[in-house]
């Protein structure tokens, strides 16, 4: 303070803004090049196949009966799994979140964890269980009830619906139970004090309050099931049950310009559905959301199930056995079985050789390495973008900061297969960027699809850090870098770790985009597993799937410990 003139600094306002603008610009540029441009190009290609406007491509694609069947199958299977998924998820979320059910905490973890399991694992398991000739469960039921033939055929639309439902209901379960647990208990207490019975309260207060969340959950299940490739590719293909996603991949594999054109046209259809759903759930349903997540942890009312407590618990146990225990156990059992026609426990039918293969075969290890590298890079870059975005969204009023937020949301809502197709068609050097057949194209695709999970985690953590914590450091003399290091980073640290894994995990075992984007040198573990499952050895594929499952569980456990229970997947 001795020399007033020396301490006078020029106004740094302009520079200040420039840095934020630069950050926003870089993120927007990335998203525009790798997300907006490819997606718009797909739409363009669909409507202007040879340069001029034409609906010819649409006409051709949709006049082909096989495509119509695929469309129909997609809408039917996704619609049915949406309805079944919500019918399962709502009572389950209520029982686990709001009643005195036994082992609630365990069930909650169990059902949430299925969310992180790659869907194709479920397809593999159910294929083993309900194969029309040799399916373990089929044979067991046939013998049990003395039937002339096996009761179920997994290679059917019904089979597809069943597997899609068992693997996408957790999406609805998570959405609904989160809303349910955040509901202000006094709303229901007010109903009870007015004389309503517990059931009446659920019907007149809880359910209507939950309606927006239920609709959002249903839409999420619908679009996830419609854009799923892993399950229909494993179950649908043998039974000739085509869906839009499998048709797109088939067309791309044909490789001709016409094939690509047809793939594009189907992809645009899928994209329009997904974007419509995204619009509905964000801007229409989202606005109606009555329940806002409060900072305080509200303790929801716990309903006493009374004499129904034991029957309800048994029902949930049975459900868990059917959708979680049996499929996972099947995958594990398969990985140890020499002859799949025989019982695992028959003499000489137990082997570790497939596990050995998984951890020794160079090809598999290479693919695993590719997946780890791609997923780590995507997660790391994703987290850097997420942190920047969280800062811009919660701490600044910089203009344009909502644009990347919007684009990231759209990216995550776009079906994987559409993102991958768009990248293939645009990143092959035709427009100056050629990352085709490299790991980069895979990393970019992963980021576009899974960035949102990381961003949401970190944004919500940042929102909970009161601005004055940062200001206190500032008034203590800390510059912005120092403030970030001393205050922000330690406080959002656990969320950063969680966010990283939330991006890493789905990228690690990703199948759909990898199927379109891999090259001989850049195969991923997800695609490797798919190839083994379909062409080589189901046992090896099962061993890989089992290894992935163990990995997911271990990571989840570590995450839970590291963040002291605040985060798990």
């Amino acid at each position, binding site marked *: *303070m001795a020399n007033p003139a020396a301490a006078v600094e020029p106004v740094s306002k302009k520079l200040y803004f420039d840095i934020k603008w630069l950050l926003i610009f870089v993120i927007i540029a990335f998203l525009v090049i790798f997300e907006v441009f490819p997606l718009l190009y797909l739409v363009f290609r669909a409507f202007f196949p040879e340069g001029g406007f034409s609906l010819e491509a649409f006409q051709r694609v949709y006049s082909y009966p096989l495509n119509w069947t695929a469309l129909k199958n997609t809408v039917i299977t996704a619609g049915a799994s949406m309805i079944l998924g919500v019918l399962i998820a709502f009572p389950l979320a209520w029982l686990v979140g709001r009643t005195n059910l036994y082992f609630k905490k365990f069930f909650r973890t169990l059902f949430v964890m299925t969310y992180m399991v790659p869907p194709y694992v479920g397809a593999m398991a159910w294929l083993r269980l309900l194969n029309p000739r040799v399916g373990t469960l089929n044979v067991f039921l046939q013998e049990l009830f003395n039937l002339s033939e096996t009761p179920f055929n997994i290679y059917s639309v019904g089979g597809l619906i069943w597997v899609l439902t068992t693997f996408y209901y957790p999406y609805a379960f998570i959405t609904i139970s989160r809303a349910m647990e955040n509901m202000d208990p006094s709303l229901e207490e007010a109903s009870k004090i007015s004389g309503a019975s517990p059931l009446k309260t659920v019907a007149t207060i809880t359910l209507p309050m939950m309606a927006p969340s239920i609709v959002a959950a249903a839409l999420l299940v619908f679009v996830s099931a419609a854009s799923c490739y892993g399950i229909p590719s494993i179950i649908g293909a043998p039974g000739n049950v085509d869906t839009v996603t499998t048709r797109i991949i088939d067309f791309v594999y044909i490789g001709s310009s016409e094939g690509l054109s047809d793939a594009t046209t189907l992809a645009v259809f899928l994209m329009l559905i997904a974007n419509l759903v995204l619009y509905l759930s964000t801007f229409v349903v989202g606005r109606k959301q009555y329940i806002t997540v409060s900072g305080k942890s509200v303790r929801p009312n716990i309903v006493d199930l009374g004499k129904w407590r034991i029957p309800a618990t048994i029902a949930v146990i049975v459900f868990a056995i059917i959708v979680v225990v049996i499929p996972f156990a099947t995958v594990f059992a398969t990985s140890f079985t020499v002859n799949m026609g025989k019982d695992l426990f028959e003499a000489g039918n137990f082997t570790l050789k497939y596990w050995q293969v998984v951890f020794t075969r160079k090809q598999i290890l290479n693919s695993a390495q590719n997946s780890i590298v791609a997923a780590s890079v995507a997660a790391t870059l994703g987290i850097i973008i997420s942190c920047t975005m969280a800062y811009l969204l919660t701490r600044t009023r910089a203009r344009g900061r909502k644009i990347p937020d919007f684009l990231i949301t759209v990216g995550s809502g776009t079906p994987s297969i559409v993102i991958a197709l768009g990248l293939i068609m645009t990143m092959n050097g035709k427009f100056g960027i050629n990352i085709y057949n490299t790991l980069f194209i895979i990393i970019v695709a992963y980021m576009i699809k899974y960035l949102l999970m990381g961003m949401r985690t970190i944004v919500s953590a940042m929102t909970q850090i009161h601005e*004055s914590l940062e*200001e*206190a450091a500032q*008034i203590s003399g*800390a510059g912005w870098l120092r403030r970030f290091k001393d205050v922000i980073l*330690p406080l959002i640290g656990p969320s950063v770790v969680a966010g990283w894994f939330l991006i890493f995990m789905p990228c690690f075992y990703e199948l759909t985009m990898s199927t379109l984007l891999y090259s001989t040198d850049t195969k991923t573990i997800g695609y490797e597993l798919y190839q083994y499952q379909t062409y080589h050895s189901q046992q090896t594929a099962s061993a890989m799937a089992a290894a992935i499952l163990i990995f997911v569980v271990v990571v989840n456990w570590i995450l839970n410990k590291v963040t002291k229970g605040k985060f798990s997947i």
Partner: protein
Amino acid sequence: MSTIKIDKVRKCFGSVEVLKEFNQVFEDKEFITLLGPSGCGKTTMLRMLAGFEKPTSGTISIDDKVVSSDKVFIPPEKRDIGMVFQSYAVWPHMTVFDNIAYPLKIKKVPKDVIKQKVDAIMEVVHLSQYADRIPSQLSGGQQQRVALGRALVAEPNLLLLDEPLSNLDAKLRENMRFEIKAIQKKLGITVVYVTHDQIEAMTMSDKVIVINDGVIQQVGNPMEIYRNPANQFVAAFVGKIDFIHATSENGKITIKDTDQTLDYDGELTGDVVVAIRPESIHLCREGGKLRGVMDNKTFMGDVNDCYVRLPNGKGVRVIAPPETYDIYEIGEEIGLDFDTFHVYEDDGTDAATKIVT
């Protein structure tokens, strides 16, 4: 030393002008309180002193050094100011010691000096035995003292306090008032204190600046503000007050709808408001400047809090000595006597008595 000059400072958020032209000089070692209801602009003024907000126009200088003007803006981290936040802003991931030591660490003070200074400050704020605790193990009052210690440890010449006591319970609030005042005297620093609590303003300040709607209403020491409120708002906001509508004419004030009058030598004529402090009114059986009927009385232990209804139906609150509770009965006709009263123009802002903070 720390002298602050605020020259023609204005602040707008978008099209809303939250602070209209603000001109003040704060002298060295002064305890200045910015007092006003929430939303009046007092916190904005404080945050502009700290550097968290930039004035829309105007100049702020600290010790003749311009920290904020059209051309110059020094960010908070370079202003050498101590500040206590309303929410305390104690970092949850650091111990008490680390929280307090932080400003010294930033200044790269040697470790042994840090230890010595932090120990000394912890003594001042009575936290010595809690050095290794983390904030979640502390009570609200203790967290508040951590924030105070952190603001003081780098020996700033200027300390800013943003409603630091508003989250504490009544008893603790009272203790902390005296402690903050004592610390300020001991360290000889300039303090700018923001509050909406007039008792805090009255008990601690050398100078009180009453603000409403972004405009300074009155500046003065607590006694001046209390005894001679510049306008109806200040009269209502600082202390308790009775407003009685009346008409002024020829050196006489006539209470509305009555024949009761008061002598008046001021300049106002026409519709006016007479303002009287309830605690300055004496009750009497005979005589008195005004007369009414005892309507309601409440025994508070130290005082008799009662209402006397004038013939026009207006209830006048009187805070009388406790023994009057037994002397005067409800329904009894009674006289009100007082030495001083203020007269303001009747601008229809009687509702200002219902200030919500």
